[in-house]
Protein backbone atom coordinates (compact mmCIF):
# COMPACT_ATOMS: atom_id res chain seq x y z
CA UNK A 1 0.00 0.00 0.00
CA UNK A 2 2.74 2.31 0.96
CA UNK A 3 4.50 1.75 -2.37
CA UNK A 4 1.31 2.35 -4.33
CA UNK A 5 0.79 5.55 -2.40
CA UNK A 6 4.30 6.68 -3.24
CA UNK A 7 3.78 5.95 -6.92
CA UNK A 8 0.26 7.14 -7.57
CA UNK A 9 -0.57 9.72 -4.94
CA UNK A 10 2.46 11.31 -3.39
CA UNK A 11 4.01 12.87 -6.54
CA UNK A 12 0.75 14.63 -7.37
CA UNK A 13 0.41 15.88 -3.83
CA UNK A 14 3.89 17.35 -4.18
CA UNK A 15 2.97 18.97 -7.48
CA UNK A 16 -0.04 20.59 -5.87
CA UNK A 17 1.91 21.68 -2.81
CA UNK A 18 4.62 23.51 -4.74
CA UNK A 19 3.27 24.66 -8.12
CA UNK A 20 6.29 26.89 -8.70
CA UNK A 21 8.54 23.82 -8.63
CA UNK A 22 6.22 22.10 -11.07
CA UNK A 23 6.40 25.04 -13.48
CA UNK A 24 10.17 25.10 -13.14
CA UNK A 25 10.38 21.40 -13.93
CA UNK A 26 8.03 21.76 -16.88
CA UNK A 27 10.13 24.60 -18.24
CA UNK A 28 13.33 22.62 -17.97
CA UNK A 29 11.65 19.70 -19.67
CA UNK A 30 10.44 21.96 -22.42
CA UNK A 31 13.92 23.30 -23.06
CA UNK A 32 15.48 19.85 -23.19
CA UNK A 33 12.57 18.85 -25.42
CA UNK A 34 13.32 21.63 -27.89
CA UNK A 35 16.80 20.26 -28.41
CA UNK A 36 15.55 16.68 -28.79
CA UNK A 37 13.07 18.00 -31.33
CA UNK A 38 15.82 19.64 -33.32
CA UNK A 39 17.88 16.47 -33.48
CA UNK A 40 14.84 14.43 -34.46
CA UNK A 41 14.04 17.05 -37.09
CA UNK A 42 17.41 16.44 -38.72
CA UNK A 43 16.63 12.74 -38.93
CA UNK A 44 13.17 13.31 -40.35
CA UNK A 45 14.38 15.67 -43.08
CA UNK A 46 16.85 13.16 -44.42
CA UNK A 47 14.59 10.17 -43.95
CA UNK A 48 11.75 11.80 -45.85
CA UNK A 49 13.83 12.77 -48.81
CA UNK A 50 16.10 9.82 -49.24
CA UNK A 51 14.68 7.02 -47.11
CA UNK A 52 17.99 6.92 -45.29
CA UNK A 53 18.01 6.65 -41.54
CA UNK A 54 20.97 8.91 -40.91
CA UNK A 55 22.85 7.48 -37.97
CA UNK A 56 25.36 10.31 -38.32
CA UNK A 57 22.89 13.07 -37.40
CA UNK A 58 24.10 13.10 -33.79
CA UNK A 59 27.72 13.37 -34.78
CA UNK A 60 26.87 16.09 -37.27
CA UNK A 61 25.72 18.12 -34.26
CA UNK A 62 29.07 17.63 -32.55
CA UNK A 63 31.07 18.12 -35.71
CA UNK A 64 29.40 21.42 -36.58
CA UNK A 65 29.77 22.78 -33.03
CA UNK A 66 33.39 21.65 -32.97
CA UNK A 67 34.11 23.29 -36.29
CA UNK A 68 32.61 26.55 -35.07
CA UNK A 69 34.57 26.59 -31.81
CA UNK A 70 37.73 25.26 -33.44
CA UNK A 71 37.73 27.98 -36.08
CA UNK A 72 37.27 30.60 -33.40
CA UNK A 73 40.20 29.17 -31.45
CA UNK A 74 42.33 29.64 -34.53
CA UNK A 75 41.61 33.33 -34.41
CA UNK A 76 38.62 33.60 -36.72
CA UNK A 77 36.04 36.14 -35.48
CA UNK A 78 32.89 34.49 -34.15
CA UNK A 79 30.48 35.52 -36.88
CA UNK A 80 32.96 34.77 -39.65
CA UNK A 81 33.44 31.37 -38.05
CA UNK A 82 29.68 30.88 -38.09
CA UNK A 83 29.48 31.63 -41.79
CA UNK A 84 32.46 29.38 -42.50
CA UNK A 85 30.86 26.58 -40.51
CA UNK A 86 27.70 26.92 -42.57
CA UNK A 87 29.96 26.62 -45.61
CA UNK A 88 31.56 23.50 -44.16
CA UNK A 89 28.11 21.96 -43.61
CA UNK A 90 27.27 22.67 -47.24
CA UNK A 91 30.49 21.00 -48.39
CA UNK A 92 29.64 18.05 -46.18
CA UNK A 93 26.19 17.75 -47.76
CA UNK A 94 27.73 17.96 -51.20
CA UNK A 95 30.39 15.36 -50.37
CA UNK A 96 27.83 13.00 -48.85
CA UNK A 97 25.76 13.16 -52.02
CA UNK A 98 28.77 12.65 -54.32
CA UNK A 99 30.67 10.05 -52.33
CA UNK A 100 27.96 8.11 -50.49
CA UNK A 101 24.47 8.53 -51.92
CA UNK A 102 25.24 8.66 -55.62
CA UNK A 103 27.39 5.52 -55.78
CA UNK A 104 24.83 3.69 -53.66
CA UNK A 105 21.77 4.77 -55.61
CA UNK A 106 19.13 2.01 -55.90
CA UNK A 107 20.81 -0.05 -53.19
CA UNK A 108 18.69 -1.47 -50.36
CA UNK A 109 17.99 0.92 -47.48
CA UNK A 110 20.05 -1.11 -45.06
CA UNK A 111 23.18 -0.50 -47.15
CA UNK A 112 22.64 3.24 -46.97
CA UNK A 113 21.99 2.97 -43.26
CA UNK A 114 25.30 1.15 -42.82
CA UNK A 115 27.02 3.81 -44.91
CA UNK A 116 25.90 6.45 -42.41
CA UNK A 117 27.69 4.44 -39.70
CA UNK A 118 30.81 4.85 -41.76
CA UNK A 119 30.11 8.57 -42.04
CA UNK A 120 29.73 8.76 -38.25
CA UNK A 121 33.15 7.29 -37.57
CA UNK A 122 34.71 9.33 -40.32
CA UNK A 123 33.36 12.54 -38.80
CA UNK A 124 34.57 11.55 -35.33
CA UNK A 125 38.05 10.80 -36.59
CA UNK A 126 38.21 13.79 -38.90
CA UNK A 127 36.94 16.17 -36.21
CA UNK A 128 39.47 14.92 -33.68
CA UNK A 129 42.29 15.07 -36.18
CA UNK A 130 41.66 18.69 -37.02
CA UNK A 131 40.33 20.22 -33.83
CA UNK A 132 41.58 17.80 -31.18
CA UNK A 133 39.53 15.54 -28.95
CA UNK A 134 39.45 17.64 -25.79
CA UNK A 135 36.31 19.27 -24.45
CA UNK A 136 35.73 22.82 -25.65
CA UNK A 137 33.58 25.69 -24.49
CA UNK A 138 30.95 27.06 -26.85
CA UNK A 139 31.58 30.64 -27.91
CA UNK A 140 28.15 31.71 -26.71
CA UNK A 141 29.17 35.20 -25.59
CA UNK A 142 30.96 35.96 -28.82
CA UNK A 143 27.84 34.98 -30.75
CA UNK A 144 25.95 37.46 -28.56
CA UNK A 145 23.81 34.79 -26.99
CA UNK A 146 22.43 36.04 -23.68
CA UNK A 147 23.54 34.58 -20.39
CA UNK A 148 22.19 34.69 -16.86
CA UNK A 149 18.67 34.07 -15.74
CA UNK A 150 15.48 35.96 -15.13
CA UNK A 151 13.32 35.24 -12.12
CA UNK A 152 9.64 35.26 -12.80
CA UNK A 153 7.13 35.47 -9.98
CA UNK A 154 4.66 32.79 -10.78
CA UNK A 155 2.46 30.17 -9.13
CA UNK A 156 3.15 31.37 -5.63
CA UNK A 157 6.92 31.33 -5.90
CA UNK A 158 9.79 32.16 -8.19
CA UNK A 159 10.60 30.38 -11.41
CA UNK A 160 14.06 30.87 -12.82
CA UNK A 161 14.38 30.99 -16.60
CA UNK A 162 17.85 30.84 -18.18
CA UNK A 163 18.09 33.46 -20.92
CA UNK A 164 20.00 31.08 -23.17
CA UNK A 165 17.09 28.64 -22.92
CA UNK A 166 14.63 31.31 -23.95
CA UNK A 167 16.86 32.20 -26.88
CA UNK A 168 17.11 28.52 -27.82
CA UNK A 169 13.36 28.13 -27.82
CA UNK A 170 12.88 31.22 -29.99
CA UNK A 171 15.59 30.31 -32.47
CA UNK A 172 14.34 26.74 -32.72
CA UNK A 173 10.78 27.91 -33.37
CA UNK A 174 11.92 30.29 -36.07
CA UNK A 175 13.97 27.57 -37.70
CA UNK A 176 11.10 25.11 -37.68
CA UNK A 177 8.69 27.69 -39.06
CA UNK A 178 11.07 28.56 -41.89
CA UNK A 179 11.60 24.93 -42.80
CA UNK A 180 7.89 24.20 -42.68
CA UNK A 181 7.08 27.07 -45.03
CA UNK A 182 9.93 26.11 -47.29
CA UNK A 183 8.78 22.51 -47.66
CA UNK A 184 5.07 23.23 -47.87
CA UNK A 185 5.08 26.07 -50.29
CA UNK A 186 7.99 26.09 -52.63
CA UNK A 187 8.68 24.18 -55.79
CA UNK A 188 11.65 22.55 -54.11
CA UNK A 189 9.41 21.51 -51.25
CA UNK A 190 7.03 19.81 -53.64
CA UNK A 191 9.95 18.15 -55.40
CA UNK A 192 11.19 16.97 -52.04
CA UNK A 193 7.92 15.35 -51.17
CA UNK A 194 7.88 13.73 -54.59
CA UNK A 195 11.34 12.29 -54.05
CA UNK A 196 10.25 11.00 -50.65
CA UNK A 197 7.47 9.03 -52.35
CA UNK A 198 9.21 7.53 -55.36
CA UNK A 199 12.68 8.04 -56.73
CA UNK A 200 11.90 6.65 -60.18
CA UNK A 201 8.80 8.73 -60.62
CA UNK A 202 10.55 11.87 -59.42
CA UNK A 203 13.31 11.33 -61.95
CA UNK A 204 10.82 10.77 -64.72
CA UNK A 205 9.16 14.14 -64.19
CA UNK A 206 12.51 15.86 -64.29
CA UNK A 207 13.42 16.28 -60.65
CA UNK A 208 17.13 15.97 -60.02
CA UNK A 209 17.70 13.61 -57.10
CA UNK A 210 21.24 14.88 -56.65
CA UNK A 211 20.10 18.45 -56.13
CA UNK A 212 17.37 17.47 -53.69
CA UNK A 213 19.74 15.34 -51.65
CA UNK A 214 22.28 18.12 -51.31
CA UNK A 215 19.49 20.46 -50.21
CA UNK A 216 18.11 18.17 -47.50
CA UNK A 217 21.50 17.18 -46.16
CA UNK A 218 22.42 20.84 -46.03
CA UNK A 219 19.16 21.63 -44.22
CA UNK A 220 19.88 18.81 -41.78
CA UNK A 221 23.39 20.22 -41.36
CA UNK A 222 22.00 23.65 -40.48
CA UNK A 223 19.63 22.09 -37.97
CA UNK A 224 22.59 20.19 -36.53
CA UNK A 225 24.63 23.38 -36.24
CA UNK A 226 21.79 25.15 -34.42
CA UNK A 227 21.42 22.22 -32.07
CA UNK A 228 25.17 22.13 -31.51
CA UNK A 229 25.34 25.81 -30.59
CA UNK A 230 22.41 25.61 -28.20
CA UNK A 231 23.45 22.40 -26.56
CA UNK A 232 27.06 23.49 -26.42
CA UNK A 233 26.08 26.73 -24.71
CA UNK A 234 24.31 24.82 -21.95
CA UNK A 235 26.99 22.23 -21.31
CA UNK A 236 30.10 22.11 -23.44
CA UNK A 237 31.28 20.79 -26.76
CA UNK A 238 32.67 17.27 -26.76
CA UNK A 239 32.06 13.97 -28.44
CA UNK A 240 30.02 12.98 -25.39
CA UNK A 241 27.29 15.11 -26.97
CA UNK A 242 26.87 12.29 -29.42
CA UNK A 243 24.84 10.28 -26.91
CA UNK A 244 22.06 12.84 -27.00
CA UNK A 245 21.50 11.71 -30.54
CA UNK A 246 20.31 8.42 -29.12
CA UNK A 247 17.59 10.39 -27.38
CA UNK A 248 16.25 11.18 -30.81
CA UNK A 249 15.31 7.54 -31.24
CA UNK A 250 12.40 7.50 -28.77
CA UNK A 251 11.40 10.90 -30.11
CA UNK A 252 11.20 9.47 -33.61
CA UNK A 253 9.26 6.42 -32.45
CA UNK A 254 6.84 8.72 -30.73
CA UNK A 255 6.49 11.26 -33.50
CA UNK A 256 6.71 9.02 -36.52
CA UNK A 257 9.75 8.89 -38.80
CA UNK A 258 8.25 10.96 -41.56
CA UNK A 259 6.54 13.78 -39.74
CA UNK A 260 8.10 17.15 -38.95
CA UNK A 261 5.33 18.14 -36.50
CA UNK A 262 5.75 14.67 -35.01
CA UNK A 263 9.42 15.28 -34.37
CA UNK A 264 8.63 18.54 -32.60
CA UNK A 265 5.75 17.30 -30.46
CA UNK A 266 7.59 14.03 -29.77
CA UNK A 267 10.68 15.91 -28.62
CA UNK A 268 8.67 18.09 -26.26
CA UNK A 269 6.77 15.13 -24.79
CA UNK A 270 9.99 13.21 -24.19
CA UNK A 271 11.76 16.23 -22.74
CA UNK A 272 8.95 17.13 -20.35
CA UNK A 273 8.15 13.51 -19.46
CA UNK A 274 11.78 12.91 -18.64
CA UNK A 275 12.17 15.88 -16.32
CA UNK A 276 8.86 15.33 -14.55
CA UNK A 277 9.63 11.65 -14.12
CA UNK A 278 13.08 12.40 -12.82
CA UNK A 279 11.96 15.01 -10.36
CA UNK A 280 8.85 13.38 -8.91
CA UNK A 281 9.41 9.67 -9.37
CA UNK A 282 13.21 9.71 -9.45
CA UNK A 283 13.76 9.41 -5.69
CA UNK A 284 11.52 6.37 -5.62
CA UNK A 285 13.03 4.52 -8.57
CA UNK A 286 16.65 5.52 -8.23
CA UNK A 287 18.58 8.24 -9.94
CA UNK A 288 19.22 6.56 -13.28
CA UNK A 289 15.65 7.16 -14.41
CA UNK A 290 16.55 9.79 -17.01
CA UNK A 291 18.50 7.33 -19.13
CA UNK A 292 15.64 4.93 -19.71
CA UNK A 293 12.41 6.80 -19.08
CA UNK A 294 12.30 8.19 -22.64
CA UNK A 295 12.31 4.68 -24.07
CA UNK A 296 9.53 3.58 -21.74
CA UNK A 297 7.38 6.52 -22.80
CA UNK A 298 8.09 5.70 -26.44
CA UNK A 299 7.27 2.03 -25.93
CA UNK A 300 3.92 2.84 -24.36
CA UNK A 301 3.06 5.04 -27.31
CA UNK A 302 4.18 2.34 -29.69
CA UNK A 303 1.64 -0.06 -28.22
CA UNK A 304 -1.23 2.21 -29.12
CA UNK A 305 0.02 3.97 -32.22
CA UNK A 306 2.61 1.88 -34.06
CA UNK A 307 2.92 4.53 -36.78
CA UNK A 308 3.77 7.22 -34.22
CA UNK A 309 1.74 10.28 -33.34
CA UNK A 310 1.76 11.82 -36.79
CA UNK A 311 3.37 9.09 -38.86
CA UNK A 312 1.80 7.94 -42.07
CA UNK A 313 -0.13 4.76 -41.72
CA UNK A 314 1.15 2.61 -44.51
CA UNK A 315 -1.51 0.51 -46.14
CA UNK A 316 -0.13 -2.05 -48.50
CA UNK A 317 -2.41 -3.47 -51.11
CA UNK A 318 -2.05 -7.17 -51.49
Amino acid at each position, binding site marked *: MDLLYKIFIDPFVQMGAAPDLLVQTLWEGLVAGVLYSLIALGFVLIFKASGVFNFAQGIMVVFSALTLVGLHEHGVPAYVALVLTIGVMFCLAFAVERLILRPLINQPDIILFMATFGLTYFLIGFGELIFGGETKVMIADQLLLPRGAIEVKMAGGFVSLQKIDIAAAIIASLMVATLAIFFQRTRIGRALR*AVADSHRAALSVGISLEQIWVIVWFAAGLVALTTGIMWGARSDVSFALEVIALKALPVLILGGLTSIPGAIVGGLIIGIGEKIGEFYWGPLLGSGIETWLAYVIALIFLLFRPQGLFGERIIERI
Partner: protein
Amino acid sequence: MRAPSGPEIAVGDVLLSVESVSLSFGGVKAVSDVSFDIRKGEIRAIIGPNGAGKTSMLNIINGFYHPQQGRIIFKGKARSKMRPHEAAHGGIARTFQNVALFRGMTALDNIMAGRALKMRTSFFWQLFRYGPAMREEVEHRHRVEEIIDFLKIQEIRRVPVGRLPYGLQKRVELGRALAMEPELLLLDEPMAGMNLEEKEDMSRFVLDVNDYYGTTIALIEHDMGVVMDLSDRVVVLDHGIKIADGTPTEVKNNQAVVDAYLGVAH
Protein backbone atom coordinates in the same frame (compact mmCIF):
# COMPACT_ATOMS: atom_id res chain seq x y z
CA MET B 1 -6.40 -1.78 -87.94
CA ARG B 2 -5.95 1.89 -87.32
CA ALA B 3 -5.37 3.08 -90.83
CA PRO B 4 -4.37 1.59 -94.13
CA SER B 5 -0.97 0.10 -93.58
CA GLY B 6 2.06 1.40 -95.37
CA PRO B 7 5.01 3.57 -94.58
CA GLU B 8 3.21 6.70 -95.78
CA ILE B 9 1.41 7.06 -92.42
CA ALA B 10 4.61 7.84 -90.61
CA VAL B 11 6.16 10.35 -92.89
CA GLY B 12 7.07 12.85 -90.16
CA ASP B 13 10.66 13.78 -89.47
CA VAL B 14 12.66 11.48 -87.29
CA LEU B 15 12.26 12.61 -83.69
CA LEU B 16 14.48 10.06 -82.08
CA SER B 17 16.76 7.45 -83.47
CA VAL B 18 18.48 4.62 -81.74
CA GLU B 19 21.76 3.71 -83.41
CA SER B 20 23.42 0.34 -82.82
CA VAL B 21 22.76 0.46 -79.11
CA SER B 22 24.08 -2.30 -76.86
CA LEU B 23 23.58 -2.68 -73.15
CA SER B 24 24.69 -5.46 -70.88
CA PHE B 25 24.52 -6.06 -67.17
CA GLY B 26 27.69 -7.88 -66.21
CA GLY B 27 27.81 -10.70 -68.71
CA VAL B 28 24.12 -10.62 -69.56
CA LYS B 29 23.28 -8.85 -72.79
CA ALA B 30 20.00 -7.01 -72.40
CA VAL B 31 20.11 -5.21 -75.74
CA SER B 32 22.56 -5.86 -78.54
CA ASP B 33 23.14 -3.71 -81.55
CA VAL B 34 19.61 -2.43 -81.91
CA SER B 35 18.73 0.39 -84.28
CA PHE B 36 15.37 1.92 -85.06
CA ASP B 37 13.78 5.33 -85.23
CA ILE B 38 10.68 7.08 -83.98
CA ARG B 39 9.07 9.65 -86.23
CA LYS B 40 7.24 12.75 -85.18
CA GLY B 41 3.57 12.16 -84.54
CA GLU B 42 3.50 8.40 -84.81
CA ILE B 43 2.62 5.68 -82.35
CA ARG B 44 5.52 3.30 -82.29
CA ALA B 45 5.16 -0.04 -80.53
CA ILE B 46 8.03 -2.07 -79.12
CA ILE B 47 7.02 -5.68 -78.70
CA GLY B 48 8.66 -8.98 -77.96
CA PRO B 49 8.47 -11.99 -75.64
CA ASN B 50 9.41 -11.72 -71.97
CA GLY B 51 13.03 -10.78 -71.45
CA ALA B 52 13.36 -9.37 -74.93
CA GLY B 53 14.87 -6.13 -73.63
CA LYS B 54 11.87 -3.87 -74.22
CA THR B 55 11.88 -2.13 -70.86
CA SER B 56 15.68 -1.83 -71.02
CA MET B 57 15.22 -0.08 -74.35
CA LEU B 58 12.78 2.39 -72.81
CA ASN B 59 15.10 2.94 -69.86
CA ILE B 60 17.90 3.74 -72.28
CA ILE B 61 15.75 6.25 -74.13
CA ASN B 62 14.85 8.21 -71.02
CA GLY B 63 18.27 7.99 -69.44
CA PHE B 64 17.80 5.50 -66.62
CA TYR B 65 20.40 3.29 -68.30
CA HIS B 66 23.39 4.36 -70.31
CA PRO B 67 24.22 2.08 -73.22
CA GLN B 68 27.79 0.76 -73.45
CA GLN B 69 27.76 1.09 -77.21
CA GLY B 70 25.82 3.09 -79.74
CA ARG B 71 24.05 6.38 -79.35
CA ILE B 72 20.67 8.02 -79.17
CA ILE B 73 19.86 10.98 -81.36
CA PHE B 74 16.97 13.02 -80.02
CA LYS B 75 15.77 16.09 -81.91
CA GLY B 76 18.88 16.01 -84.04
CA LYS B 77 21.27 15.99 -81.09
CA ALA B 78 23.37 12.94 -80.33
CA ARG B 79 24.07 12.00 -76.77
CA SER B 80 25.82 9.16 -75.11
CA LYS B 81 24.95 9.95 -71.52
CA MET B 82 21.84 11.77 -70.44
CA ARG B 83 20.46 11.69 -66.94
CA PRO B 84 16.73 11.04 -66.50
CA HIS B 85 15.93 14.54 -65.31
CA GLU B 86 17.75 15.94 -68.33
CA ALA B 87 15.68 13.72 -70.59
CA ALA B 88 12.60 15.10 -68.87
CA HIS B 89 13.81 18.65 -69.52
CA GLY B 90 14.35 17.70 -73.15
CA GLY B 91 10.72 16.65 -73.51
CA ILE B 92 10.64 12.93 -72.82
CA ALA B 93 7.96 11.76 -70.37
CA ARG B 94 7.16 8.21 -69.37
CA THR B 95 5.01 5.86 -67.38
CA PHE B 96 6.13 2.68 -65.69
CA GLN B 97 5.29 -1.00 -66.00
CA ASN B 98 4.25 -1.24 -62.37
CA VAL B 99 2.95 2.27 -61.71
CA ALA B 100 5.35 4.67 -59.99
CA LEU B 101 3.21 7.39 -58.48
CA PHE B 102 3.74 9.63 -55.46
CA ARG B 103 1.56 7.48 -53.26
CA GLY B 104 1.14 9.93 -50.41
CA MET B 105 -0.14 12.69 -52.66
CA THR B 106 -3.55 13.19 -54.20
CA ALA B 107 -4.20 12.56 -57.88
CA LEU B 108 -4.21 16.31 -58.41
CA ASP B 109 -0.85 16.82 -56.68
CA ASN B 110 0.64 13.97 -58.66
CA ILE B 111 -0.33 15.58 -61.91
CA MET B 112 0.81 18.98 -60.61
CA ALA B 113 4.20 17.39 -59.92
CA GLY B 114 4.43 16.84 -63.65
CA ARG B 115 4.43 20.63 -64.00
CA ALA B 116 7.43 20.94 -61.67
CA LEU B 117 9.73 21.68 -64.57
CA LYS B 118 7.56 24.43 -65.94
CA MET B 119 7.43 26.47 -62.75
CA ARG B 120 9.72 29.44 -62.88
CA THR B 121 8.89 32.00 -60.21
CA SER B 122 11.50 32.78 -57.63
CA PHE B 123 11.73 31.31 -54.24
CA PHE B 124 10.72 34.48 -52.50
CA TRP B 125 7.30 34.71 -54.10
CA GLN B 126 6.70 31.04 -53.63
CA LEU B 127 7.32 31.33 -49.91
CA PHE B 128 4.51 33.81 -49.62
CA ARG B 129 2.25 32.36 -52.31
CA TYR B 130 1.72 35.81 -53.56
CA GLY B 131 2.09 37.83 -56.72
CA PRO B 132 3.74 36.00 -59.61
CA ALA B 133 3.83 32.70 -57.73
CA MET B 134 0.08 32.74 -57.23
CA ARG B 135 -0.54 33.59 -60.89
CA GLU B 136 1.78 30.82 -61.96
CA GLU B 137 0.14 28.31 -59.66
CA VAL B 138 -3.28 29.21 -61.04
CA GLU B 139 -2.10 28.99 -64.61
CA HIS B 140 -0.58 25.54 -64.10
CA ARG B 141 -3.59 24.42 -62.18
CA HIS B 142 -5.69 25.39 -65.19
CA ARG B 143 -3.60 23.18 -67.49
CA VAL B 144 -3.79 20.33 -65.02
CA GLU B 145 -7.57 20.60 -64.80
CA GLU B 146 -7.72 20.29 -68.57
CA ILE B 147 -5.78 17.05 -68.37
CA ILE B 148 -8.02 15.81 -65.58
CA ASP B 149 -11.06 16.48 -67.76
CA PHE B 150 -9.39 14.85 -70.71
CA LEU B 151 -8.72 11.67 -68.76
CA LYS B 152 -12.14 11.78 -67.05
CA ILE B 153 -10.80 11.55 -63.53
CA GLN B 154 -12.55 14.61 -62.09
CA GLU B 155 -14.17 12.78 -59.20
CA ILE B 156 -10.95 11.30 -57.87
CA ARG B 157 -8.75 14.36 -57.99
CA ARG B 158 -8.64 14.74 -54.19
CA VAL B 159 -8.06 11.07 -53.42
CA PRO B 160 -4.57 9.95 -52.35
CA VAL B 161 -3.46 7.77 -55.21
CA GLY B 162 -2.44 4.88 -52.95
CA ARG B 163 -6.14 4.24 -52.42
CA LEU B 164 -7.15 4.17 -56.07
CA PRO B 165 -7.71 0.98 -58.01
CA TYR B 166 -4.92 -0.04 -60.33
CA GLY B 167 -6.60 1.02 -63.56
CA LEU B 168 -7.15 4.54 -62.28
CA GLN B 169 -3.60 4.74 -60.94
CA LYS B 170 -2.37 4.05 -64.45
CA ARG B 171 -4.58 6.82 -65.72
CA VAL B 172 -3.23 9.29 -63.14
CA GLU B 173 0.27 8.28 -64.13
CA LEU B 174 -0.55 9.02 -67.75
CA GLY B 175 -1.93 12.37 -66.59
CA ARG B 176 1.30 13.22 -64.82
CA ALA B 177 3.28 12.41 -67.95
CA LEU B 178 0.92 14.54 -70.06
CA ALA B 179 1.29 17.45 -67.65
CA MET B 180 4.90 17.66 -68.76
CA GLU B 181 3.67 18.44 -72.28
CA PRO B 182 6.20 16.00 -73.67
CA GLU B 183 7.29 15.69 -77.24
CA LEU B 184 7.89 12.02 -76.78
CA LEU B 185 5.78 9.92 -74.46
CA LEU B 186 7.04 6.50 -73.42
CA LEU B 187 4.43 4.07 -72.13
CA ASP B 188 5.64 0.88 -70.52
CA GLU B 189 2.79 -1.64 -70.78
CA PRO B 190 0.00 0.88 -70.26
CA MET B 191 -2.61 -1.87 -70.30
CA ALA B 192 -0.91 -4.52 -68.22
CA GLY B 193 -3.17 -6.04 -65.60
CA MET B 194 -6.31 -4.35 -66.91
CA ASN B 195 -9.62 -5.91 -67.78
CA LEU B 196 -11.07 -5.61 -71.26
CA GLU B 197 -13.09 -2.50 -70.51
CA GLU B 198 -10.15 -0.68 -68.92
CA LYS B 199 -7.98 -1.69 -71.85
CA GLU B 200 -10.43 -0.19 -74.29
CA ASP B 201 -10.56 3.02 -72.26
CA MET B 202 -6.80 3.25 -72.12
CA SER B 203 -6.44 2.53 -75.85
CA ARG B 204 -8.79 5.36 -76.57
CA PHE B 205 -6.81 7.72 -74.34
CA VAL B 206 -3.58 6.77 -76.08
CA LEU B 207 -5.12 7.44 -79.50
CA ASP B 208 -6.66 10.71 -78.27
CA VAL B 209 -3.37 11.92 -76.84
CA ASN B 210 -1.75 11.21 -80.17
CA ASP B 211 -4.50 12.94 -82.15
CA TYR B 212 -5.39 15.78 -79.85
CA TYR B 213 -2.00 16.82 -78.51
CA GLY B 214 -0.03 15.46 -81.44
CA THR B 215 2.31 13.72 -79.02
CA THR B 216 4.67 11.11 -80.40
CA ILE B 217 4.26 7.89 -78.46
CA ALA B 218 6.45 4.86 -78.01
CA LEU B 219 4.77 2.03 -76.16
CA ILE B 220 5.52 -1.44 -74.98
CA GLU B 221 2.60 -3.80 -75.00
CA HIS B 222 1.98 -7.51 -74.69
CA ASP B 223 -1.55 -7.62 -75.98
CA MET B 224 -1.09 -8.15 -79.73
CA GLY B 225 -4.63 -7.03 -80.46
CA VAL B 226 -3.96 -3.69 -78.82
CA VAL B 227 -0.66 -3.29 -80.64
CA MET B 228 -2.23 -3.99 -84.01
CA ASP B 229 -5.03 -1.51 -83.31
CA LEU B 230 -2.96 1.33 -81.98
CA SER B 231 0.39 1.47 -83.60
CA ASP B 232 1.64 2.91 -86.85
CA ARG B 233 4.86 0.95 -86.80
CA VAL B 234 6.17 -1.89 -84.71
CA VAL B 235 9.68 -2.93 -83.77
CA VAL B 236 10.10 -6.48 -82.50
CA LEU B 237 12.85 -7.48 -80.07
CA ASP B 238 13.80 -10.98 -79.02
CA HIS B 239 16.63 -11.72 -76.62
CA GLY B 240 17.88 -8.19 -77.04
CA ILE B 241 18.10 -8.39 -80.82
CA LYS B 242 15.85 -6.62 -83.29
CA ILE B 243 14.12 -9.27 -85.40
CA ALA B 244 11.56 -7.21 -87.27
CA ASP B 245 10.50 -3.64 -87.92
CA GLY B 246 7.54 -2.43 -89.94
CA THR B 247 3.80 -1.92 -90.07
CA PRO B 248 1.61 -4.14 -87.89
CA THR B 249 0.62 -6.27 -90.90
CA GLU B 250 4.16 -6.78 -92.06
CA VAL B 251 5.27 -7.73 -88.58
CA LYS B 252 2.38 -10.09 -88.03
CA ASN B 253 3.25 -12.03 -91.15
CA ASN B 254 6.98 -12.10 -90.45
CA GLN B 255 8.17 -15.67 -89.91
CA ALA B 256 10.86 -14.69 -87.37
CA VAL B 257 8.26 -12.96 -85.24
CA VAL B 258 5.90 -15.92 -85.34
CA ASP B 259 8.79 -18.19 -84.35
CA ALA B 260 9.82 -15.93 -81.48
CA TYR B 261 6.33 -15.87 -80.06
CA LEU B 262 5.33 -19.47 -80.68
CA GLY B 263 8.71 -21.17 -80.51
CA VAL B 264 10.27 -22.96 -83.44
CA ALA B 265 9.35 -26.56 -84.16
CA HIS B 266 12.47 -28.70 -84.22
